[in-house]
């Protein structure tokens, strides 16, 4: 079926099988292989992309259902040779080992930081009525907000450091 999807600011007019997930459309049709297929069943977060500003799982999203929507993948974060601050933070903090989960981690972290700046609570926020504050966010909060992205190498401490560093960078700037 005919589907128009905007990916990283480029509009693609595609003729897709209705069974195709967004993940497979990105990788196999558009050649954007930065988005990774981990579990393919919504458990690992490796396939995380940003649709209309929200982080979601591309493995459980039908490509046909993305008609008219804007998808951002890891390929869309950097401005030319200039890395997105979250990409730079992952490099600086060594927030990866094998790198397979990293695109999903970074896209998820970009949104997690935006959510913190919007002040929305997480499961570990003591009182959901409160607005969370980026300056005093605990590691427990970062862990909870990043719990949808698994890392089999166990790079979690450095991932948390990277998110914290990007958060601090944004608070300062």
């Amino acid at each position, binding site marked *: 079926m005919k589907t128009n999807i905007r990916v990283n600011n480029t509009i693609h007019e595609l003729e897709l099988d209705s*069974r195709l997930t967004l993940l497979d459309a990105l990788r196999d049709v558009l050649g954007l292989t930065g988005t990774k297929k981990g579990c393919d*069943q919504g458990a690992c*977060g490796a396939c995380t992309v940003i649709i209309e500003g929200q982080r*979601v799982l591309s493995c*459980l999203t039908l490509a*046909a259902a993305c008609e008219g929507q804007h998808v951002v993948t890891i390929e869309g974060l950097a401005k030319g040779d200039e890395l997105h601050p979250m990409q730079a933070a992952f490099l600086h903090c060594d927030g990866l080992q094998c790198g397979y989960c990293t695109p999903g981690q970074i896209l*998820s972290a970009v*949104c997690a930081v935006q959510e913190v700046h919007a002040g929305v609570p997480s499961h570990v926020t003591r009182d959901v009525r409160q607005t969370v504050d980026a300056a005093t966010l605990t590691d427990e909060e970062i862990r909870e907000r990043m*719990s*949808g992205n698994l890392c089999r190498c166990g790079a979690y401490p450095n991932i948390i450091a990277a998110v914290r560093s990007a958060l601090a960078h944004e608070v300062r700037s």
Partner: protein
Amino acid sequence: MRAFAYVRLARATDAARAVAARPGAMFLAGGTTLVDLMKIDVLTPDTVVDVRPLGLSSIDVSDEAIAIGAAVTNSQLAWHPVVRDRFPLLSEAILSGATTQIRNMATVAGNLLQRTRCPYFRDVHASCNRRQPGSGCDALEGFNRGHAVLGVSEHCIATHPSDMCVALVALDADVRTLRSDGTTRSIPFGELHRSPGDTPHLEVALEYGELITHVVIANLPAARRSHYLKVRDRASYEFALASAAVVLDLDGDTIRAARLALGGIATKPWRATEAERSLTGRKASDETFRDAAEITLTGASAREHNHFKIELAKRTIVGAFASAREAKL
């Protein structure tokens, strides 16, 4: 995945009609249940009708109630300032489930209609009366550590997996629907989900093609003192072993009224009305809460691996009420 037609319509009545007209059609919302189960052939619709373009994505707030569109995402609802203020247990319940990515996709109606996480339901080679009526239930003598102890039958012991529904049943929410003939109705939340009995495949009290359009929650001032406590095997991204949604209306130390619902231990979102009644007029002490917990779990029926859930659920109830009692308003 089996071949299917993806249908996008603009009007809710057309969507209800489109599903009602085809025996193999299903509504598609966030896809976190349906696409997952289509990949493993547990669900094999020949048509999916997307409910997200139907204009059911807003939360309308009035002094009397909030009306939540069926396609509102779990994140939208949990993060809404009025929901957090009036119904903290609802925000807490939603935020305790799944992950941000999944809550950004999953919708309110989809959460209500999500399918059980029983591993035998998800395995097409296993016997499951819910998936294939009359085939038997491999969970009865199988690995049933995660299974239900309340509302079970000899045909099915599958746990209802939702956290959000536990809060909604405690809040006496109303489910608004639209049928393919254009008529609408309102279903009390407690009547939406069915216990399995001898027809576990009939999970909800909806007609085929009947579309959930809204969930309405009437204002409940007492719900400002409320809590959702979830106990699970790991700290995040895991289904409940036991959970409790509670509302506590206090007059000093005395309980004026209470609400109690349970998750993780029952075949449907479980409202404990008898236990609620027993709390009225009593002192808000741990002993009182323990008495209510005993009443709630009377008649619980465990299998080989899930005995622990009975005591765990009792302690979860006491813990949830104690937290609500201590809440600073």
